[in-house]
């Protein structure tokens, strides 16, 4: 294939570096420096896709981020597919594989196109709201067909082989856009010594200068750009980010920059390189120098391939050495687009005519046109285009002075390219992200950034000055302003001389009328990607969708991946005209991040897979792994769940662990329990306020269980707190609740009771905690300590300091199993050592490690609750039958006391926690089963509470359960029925939750 549209010379491409690429299975050639779009145009590829709704052939319209049509599928392998890549922003690389995202069997011959032609008239905006309703059952069927047409590109079906970086940045000045304004701003701030970040979405700096033949200081502009860039690159605190789009402008000058590191090299990043980087920037000041987008005019069949934006045509010629056609017609409302005709002519191709909508254009450009012998058709517009897969001709008609109507006969000219300019829209998107509303400017005929609370400046075209001289001056000024605000020097940089010409007034015109009414005229597209037409917008207005937000939502205007960069303003203008209002009266245009789409992977960074969330380990974790533990996620902790032996089912493992513990001795790694060290003379008083029970008399050396409630009286945590010294306690919390309880204590201390002399410190990770439990636990402990751990000297709910396996330890004689238990705490650096010593000595006692599941069973046999499983934020201590843990006598009204006294908390028939014995002892009720008193009741059945904990108890030889039952504590012996999903109804009897050793003798021996 030859590059038939490629010029022999000129442009910023490297003709000595040819690159081959694939489009829809065919091989093509381009050059280094090309975008995929410029390479396609060079090869004369006209149709690059089909439109979403009508399946019309579409071609390339623009040369940058505003391109609505050239949205391609990229990627050579399944894993490296990238959907919806904008060809105008994708740099060409060797071996690039691309395809159109729709069209069947091919974009050139698309069967859906017939549907579009035939059905098009039946598919006005919102047609789907008006049909597919009957019969009711059919919608899902209709929808299946609608969904077939959904989507542009395809997601990969394999996992992403690439990695992504995320970096936090801080700077004094973030300059967005490296055109003349941005470069001048960055240079000024840089010379002042500011920390500067300069980001631009393109592969090289220069912005608008890259696409023109304009000179600076009499030389090609690129020279000045190179000099400035080089100076900036030499500054220590200046960061230059090409290929980096500032996508989001968030509160307090926090901005995100999406940098493509390798997308210009291959579809898979070279080894060791991150494919993309997301910069999270906190900027003291932001200078927006984002430029402007040229607006195409709206006219009949303006979507036929060959219809382009004037400045884009110039860019392809000047930057890429590509002339996208042979015979050009220019239609413009302003002087600017004349240059496109000149560029085209200088490229050696034919300019058929310049159609100027102004009645009497004057000045240098007009003179130049006639000097060049270019036919100038004044006061006219292109009302229709001939051709389907490529423009073959245009229909031109004279317009009324205000451009609102055709008032002359139609002449046809043959041409294959139409370049239009309806003026320029400042790129204000980022300025609006933090809630600032854009304001309409008549002179600019566009929206400008509105007032903002952010430390933000604007310079250049975004501020409505479309001249290079203006951009340079405003950029430098913005740089100085930022420096002044930062208290730095405000250097004056020498600005290059430009070659400005006087621009004559442009005409404000968006929509070229047709001889027919818009509704009957050929389709005049406003938003190409969503097939939104002028007729559609007028229809929406006729139907009462008058707010621009309604128009957009009803027609889908601006909802494409280009977010209406080309079409929004024209759409508003058409809606305004249709409703007899001004553009500002129809509303404003609101922008949200992202400016251009951002890869999920870049937003995720390395917080995925292994690093998605921390895994927290205890000091004994390695041992658990080596001994075959399966793990349970408890908060971020990895806790042993149970320790299966070869060939065991889970139940067999649990039975073994439970029996071994009750018959001899088991061991649990309890290190994950939250531990908070509390010191100060008021520690005791503080405990009395945050726990429901009494602490005044707890003696040094003693431990006590406590319930913690919210101010609403509902239980939210529990644990044992021990008195280490008169003014010294250690509190334990649930594993999941540690951080919350710690913050809770600090909250009350700092905001409510600062007068109390107490300090809290979290020591959860400091102590390794291992609980040996069972009749032989004392014998085992005695083998590792010289201390007297007899019942006489070391009673239940005492703690003692002693050496265990040579390691200083605090041993707590507390029990969550109801067995004789010792909770050994040593500094975690020695935890595994002690743990292993226990196993050395424990072999003869069949010391058995157990995990959370066996812990649950053993505590349930004793009726001990687990906060978060047996409670859910809606039960108070009395509901749990734990009134014994509430001291109403305490002088201070502890947290929760008032809450649990509210009307609804003291009413009868609240759900209360009880034990449940199934009539058939072999049946284990599923946790979460819902109980009823009347199993025959019709649906909806009155439910009386659910099963919170339920297990097979190997020790008892029958199932055990705990659950909430309405009025349960007064219903001992009564039956509750549990209708299960499989149709069974399980009968159970309400009983005490203490199934084993009700007198609590075993733990006291």
């Amino acid at each position, binding site marked *: 294939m030859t590059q038939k549209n490629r010029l022999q010379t000129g442009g910023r491409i490297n003709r000595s570096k040819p690159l081959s690429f694939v489009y829809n299975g065919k091989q093509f050639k381009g050059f280094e420096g090309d975008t995929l779009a410029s390479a396609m145009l060079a090869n004369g590829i006209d149709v690059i896709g089909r439109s979403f709704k009508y399946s019309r052939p579409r071609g390339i319209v623009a040369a940058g981020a505003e391109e609505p049509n050239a949205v391609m599928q990229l990627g050579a392998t399944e894993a490296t597919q990238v959907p919806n890549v904008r060809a105008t922003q994708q740099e060409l690389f060797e071996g690039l594989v691309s395809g159109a995202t729709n069209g069947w069997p091919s974009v050139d011959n698309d069967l859906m196109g017939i549907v579009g032609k035939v059905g098009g008239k039946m598919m006005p905006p919102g047609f789907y709201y008006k049909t597919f309703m009957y019969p009711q059952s059919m919608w899902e069927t209709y929808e299946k067909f609608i969904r077939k047409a959904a989507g542009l590109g395809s997601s990969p079906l394999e996992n992403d082989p690439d990695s992504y*970086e*995320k*970096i*936090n*940045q*801080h700077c004094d000045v973030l300059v967005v856009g490296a055109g003349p304004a941005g470069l001048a701003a960055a240079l000024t701030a840089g010379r002042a010594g500011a*920390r500067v970040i300069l980001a631009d979405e393109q592969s090289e700096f220069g912005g608008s200068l890259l696409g023109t033949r304009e000179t600076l200081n009499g030389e090609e502009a690129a020279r000045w750009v190179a000099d400035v860039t080089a100076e900036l690159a030499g500054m220590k*605190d200046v960061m230059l980010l090409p290929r980096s789009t500032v996508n989001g402008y968030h509160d307090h000058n926090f901005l995100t920059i999406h940098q493509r590191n390798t997308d210009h090299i291959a579809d898979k990043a070279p080894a*060791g*390189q*991150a494919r993309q980087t997301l910069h*999270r920037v*906190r900027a003291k000041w932001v200078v927006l120098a984002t430029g402007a987008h040229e607006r195409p005019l709206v006219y009949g069949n303006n979507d036929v391939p060959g219809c382009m934006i004037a400045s884009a045509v110039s860019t392809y010629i000047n930057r890429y050495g590509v002339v996208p056609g042979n015979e050009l017609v220019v239609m413009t409302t302003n002087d600017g687009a004349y240059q496109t005709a000149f560029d085209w002519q200088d490229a050696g191709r034919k300019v058929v005519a310049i159609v100027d909508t102004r009645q009497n254009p004057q000045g240098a450009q007009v003179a130049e046109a006639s000097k060049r012998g270019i036919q100038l058709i004044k006061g006219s517009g292109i009302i229709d285009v001939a051709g389907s897969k490529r423009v073959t001709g245009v229909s031109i008609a004279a317009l009324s002075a205000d451009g609102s109507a055709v008032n002359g006969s139609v002449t046809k000219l043959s041409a294959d390219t139409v370049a239009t300019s309806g003026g320029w829209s400042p790129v204000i998107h980022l300025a609006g992200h933090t809630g600032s509303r854009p304001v309409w400017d008549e002179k600019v005929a566009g929206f400008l950034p509105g007032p903002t609370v952010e430390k933000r400046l604007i310079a250049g075209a975004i501020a409505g000055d479309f001249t290079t001289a203006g951009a340079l001056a405003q950029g430098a000024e913005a740089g100085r302003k930022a420096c002044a605000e930062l208290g730095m020097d405000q250097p004056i940089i020498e600005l290059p001389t430009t070659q400005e010409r006087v621009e004559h007034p442009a005409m404000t015109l968006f929509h070229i009328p047709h001889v027919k009414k818009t509704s009957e005229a050929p389709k005049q597209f406003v938003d190409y990607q969503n097939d939104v037409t002028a007729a559609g917008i007028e229809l929406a207005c006729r139907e009462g969708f008058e707010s621009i937000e309604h128009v957009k939502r009803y027609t889908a205007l601006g909802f494409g991946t280009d977010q209406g960069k080309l079409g929004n303003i024209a759409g508003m203008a058409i809606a305004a005209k249709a409703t007899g209002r001004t553009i500002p009266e129809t509303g404003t245009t609101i922008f949200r991040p992202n400016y251009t789409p951002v890869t999920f992977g870049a937003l995720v*960074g*390395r*917080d995925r897979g*292994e*690093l998605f*969330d*921390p*895994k*927290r*380990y*205890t*000091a004994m*974790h*390695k041992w658990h792994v080596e001994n075959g533990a399966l793990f349970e996620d408890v908060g971020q902790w990895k806790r042993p769940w149970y320790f299966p032996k070869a060939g065991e089912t889970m139940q067999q493992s649990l039975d073994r662990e439970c029996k071994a513990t009750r018959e001899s001795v088991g061991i649990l790694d309890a290190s*994950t329990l939250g531990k908070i*060290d509390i*010191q*100060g*003379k008021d520690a005791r008083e503080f405990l009395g306020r945050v726990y429901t029970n009494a602490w005044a008399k707890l003696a040094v050396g003693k431990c006590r269980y406590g319930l913690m409630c919210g101010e609403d009286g509902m239980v939210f945590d529990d644990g044992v707190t021990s008195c*280490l*010294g*008169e*003014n*010294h306690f250690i509190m334990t919390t649930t594993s999941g609740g540690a951080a919350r309880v710690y913050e809770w204590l600090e909250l009350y201390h700092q905001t409510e009771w600062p007068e109390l*002399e107490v*300090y809290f*410190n979290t*020591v*959860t*990770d*400091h*102590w*390794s905690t291992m609980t040996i439990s069972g009749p032989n636990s004392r014998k085992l402990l005695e083998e590792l300590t010289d201390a007297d751990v007899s019942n006489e000297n070391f009673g239940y709910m005492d703690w003692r*300091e002693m*050496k265990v*396996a*040579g*390691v*200083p330890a*605090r041993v707590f004689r507390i029990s969550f199993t109801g067995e004789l238990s010792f909770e050994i705490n*040593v*500094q*975690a*650096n*020695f935890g*595994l*050592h002690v743990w292993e010593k226990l196993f050395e000595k424990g072999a003869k006692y069949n010391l058995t490690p157990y995990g959370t599941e066996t812990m649950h069973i053993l505590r349930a046999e004793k009726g001990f609750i687990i906060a978060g499983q047996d409670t859910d934020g809606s039960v108070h201590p009395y509901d749990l039958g734990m009134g014994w843990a509430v001291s109403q006598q305490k002088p201070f009204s502890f947290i929760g006391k008032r809450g649990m006294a509210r009307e609804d908390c003291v009413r009868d028939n609240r759900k209360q926690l009880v034990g449940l014995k199934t009539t058939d002892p072999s049946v284990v009720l599923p946790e979460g089963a819902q109980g009823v008193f009347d199993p025959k009741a019709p649906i909806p059945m009155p439910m009386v509470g659910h099963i919170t904990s339920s297990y097979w108890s190997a020790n008892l030889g029958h199932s055990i359960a705990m659950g909430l039952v309405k009025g349960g504590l007064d219903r001992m012996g009564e039956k509750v029925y549990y209708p299960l999903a499989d149709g069974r109804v399980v009968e159970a009897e309400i009983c005490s939750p203490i199934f084993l050793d009700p007198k609590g003798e075993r733990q006291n021996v």
Partner: protein
Amino acid sequence: MSDTKNVAIMNQVPDAAAGVRAESPLHHADLGTVAQKGLKSGGVHFREMGLLGHLTLRCDPKNADLIAAAAGVLGVELPLKPLTSVESGSTIVRWISPDEWLITVPNDQSFDLESRFRAEMSGHYSLVNGSGGMTLFKLSGDRVVDMLKKATPVDLHDSEFPVGKVVSTVFAKSGAIIRRTGATEFELVVRRSFADYLWLWIQSASQEFGLVVEA
């Protein structure tokens, strides 16, 4: 005068004679072997300074007696200026909050230091030994700042983060107490249970610069 009857303190470090094996939070990562097998040069250097004594002191900075007493015990003034630290020999004192300081010493000195506090400092304060719950990472190298920027949102530019500055902040999805000890040298105090996660994270984030593990 002595405070020991009101608070329980205990020498938590076994006698050398007991032959107890001590394991730092990254013990399982076997950094010794990693160091031998791994890169010898790179942009980021990593070393775990495990088994230090970590003591947290909390008291009212406006109480001159307490501040003086603490200075007496430590041999240096407590840093009262936010986000600063002081060093004296092997003792480092970090400002954590207006009424909180983190003191690190060799672990075998922690009980002695604790005892001296209890003996010489009275009044309302707390002193807690957290040695088992923390470890210290030394991170250095030409690219260390570039690596740290990936993990923490604080500004590490030398104009904002001079040597000696210490901040408690988020680090990846955990937290760390970061202190600058040199132009290209930082130390992180992190929690034991998160140490493995942070170690994995630092390895991943350092890969592009080349990670040199020291042990």
